[in-house]
């Protein structure tokens, strides 16, 4: 073993220690009794403090807020949103890989103009409610844009690459821009009968919309790496293209789907901003509850630690699984 290698190992150990120590600290703090926490730092269970289950009992008895309910919500929202996002996203990604699209810039602009102008017009001059004018303007814009796209238009034609770029660039937007508008839109929808704020579907909807760019980006690389020959053979046999997708393409890209699903789930599980804006009590998610722990009843670190562990453990399990997948060259495609 040469010196460089020793140095590298040492550095790795150092960084791994820095990574692990805070996590270790949470775990032991969650098993400390209140006096043991407040008496100053202690490090090793059974040696300098006696572990107790006090914090966990508090959580189970509902003293720290509705944990059982919140974990259930987070799980339900997370799994549903990730499943839907993976499904829709991979359909879109597959379409973008295999079929050439031509969207004319002109029709895109027309879409924009009608959606925006129509909305303002209906709202301000025809006195329609916000949500109604929104829906009307939007569907009108969509129909017109699709029709217009078939005509010859001046201006450049956008291909698949441009569409993908557009998708991915969504990630660049600061979420506040959208979170705030979404809050207003949801409250308007609430007034006209569809309750969206603080509901299951309201949250799932937001998260699906916001995970899609990542899903499309990741899945596109997986699909592009699949051999086209199998699909071509199926096409010759006159298999309809949606059957090719469900029966051939999806089974072949199982590892990619799994990884994408998990990355999406991690994103949704940890998401804070949208949950903060769009939920209040009924469908609160875990990050909000955890963040609220330190202000509600003062700094009760033993309970905070237990709460934090709730949020962390599923993600650690996923880190282990992802690490496995990574070894099989998962991320290679994603950055090329």
């Amino acid at each position, binding site marked *: 073993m040469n010196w460089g290698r020793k140095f590298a190992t040492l550095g790795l150990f150092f960084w791994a220690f820095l990574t692990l120590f805070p996590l270790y600290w949470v775990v032991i703090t969650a098993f400390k009794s209140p006096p043991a926490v407040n008496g100053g730092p202690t490090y090793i269970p059974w040696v300098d403090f006696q572990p107790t289950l006090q914090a966990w009992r508090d959580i189970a008895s509902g003293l720290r807020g509705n944990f059982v309910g919140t974990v259930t919500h987070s799980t339900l929202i997370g799994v549903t949103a990730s499943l839907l996002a993976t499904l829709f996203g991979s359909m879109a990604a597959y379409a973008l890989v295999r079929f050439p699209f031509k969207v004319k810039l002109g029709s895109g602009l027309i879409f924009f103009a009608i*959606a925006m102008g129509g909305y303002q017009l209906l709202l301000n001059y025809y006195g329609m409610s916000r949500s109604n004018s929104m829906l009307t303007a939007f569907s009108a814009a969509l129909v017109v844009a699709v029709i217009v796209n078939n005509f010859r238009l001046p201006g450049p034609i956008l291909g698949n690459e441009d569409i993908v770029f557009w998708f991915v660039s969504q990630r660049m937007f600061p979420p506040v821009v959208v979170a705030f508008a979404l809050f207003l839109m949801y409250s308007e929808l609430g007034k006209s009968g569809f309750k969206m704020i603080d509901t299951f579907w309201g949250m799932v909807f937001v998260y699906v919309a916001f995970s899609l760019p990542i899903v499309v980006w990741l899945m596109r690389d997986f699909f592009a790496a699949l051999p086209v020959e199998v699909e071509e053979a199926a096409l010759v046999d006159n298999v309809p293209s949606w059957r090719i997708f469900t029966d051939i393409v999806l089974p072949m890209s199982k590892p990619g789907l799994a990884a994408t699903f998990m990355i999406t789930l991690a994103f949704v599980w940890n998401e804070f901003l949208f949950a903060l804006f769009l939920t209040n009590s009924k469908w609160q998610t875990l990050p909000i509850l955890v963040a609220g722990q330190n202000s509600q009843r003062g700094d009760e670190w033993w309970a905070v630690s237990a709460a934090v562990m709730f949020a962390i453990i599923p993600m650690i399990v996923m880190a282990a699984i992802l690490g496995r997948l990574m070894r099989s060259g998962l991320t290679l495609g*994603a950055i090329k």
Partner: protein
Amino acid sequence: MIVLAMAIFPLIYSLSISFMHYRLIPPMPPRFNGLDNYAKLLSQPRFWSVIYTTSVIVVISVTIQYVIGFAVATALHAKIKGSSVFRVILLMPMLIAPVAVALIARMILNPVIGPLDQFLTMFGFPDLPFLADKNWAMGSIIAVEVWQWTPFVILLMLAGLQTLPKDVYEAATLENASRWRQFWDITFPMLLPISVAIVFIRIIESFKIMDTVFVMTGGGPGIATETLTLFAYQEGFKKFNLGYTAALSFLFLIFIIVIGVIFLAIVKPYVEKRS
């Protein structure tokens, strides 16, 4: 298509609000006031302070993340025993909710119960004001950002390292080029495009920082660590000043785009020169 539309609509909606005077409390009918919101924001010192704070956090933390991340990725790539275990461990922070990370940080930095204070006291630095003093608080937030997001750089740089062709290194070893020279003459230039992409993603993502600051300092002491997103949240949800907030978020968007373009413009000649 519907989802696509779903993503555009809030944008259009908040753009239209940003030109209006619109408050929920006290409730007033929205009225058009042109660029007033923008003008008011740009003349407010708090806005510039928030921009400054956010930029400092982003620039310093992304730089450190990149350096450490690259170093760790190179070390991992050197086929060290147990590197698969290291890989899992090193990935973990990235997947933990930023809220949880911030709470852990508050525990560690706590002057009474935290281990770090005890550790530093041993070296003669008792009671450092980690979250109470302006500069220390910034430092703490940056440290937490680095802790959490270096794994992202490691992950992608490692993937990048694995794509490098082996024969170039073999040739270099034959010519007795030192490891150090190999790194600077082969590895670094070849990974430059990926590096640019990674740093770019990190810059964009870091500008959105909110949860960490929200939990760690709440923007304090004073407004010393307040970031853009947090500022928007305060204006919108504490004061319900909607038009103003919408204008703020669009300035934010413009700012990010400008930063992104500047970054790419600075970096572009280097990337092109190499390839």
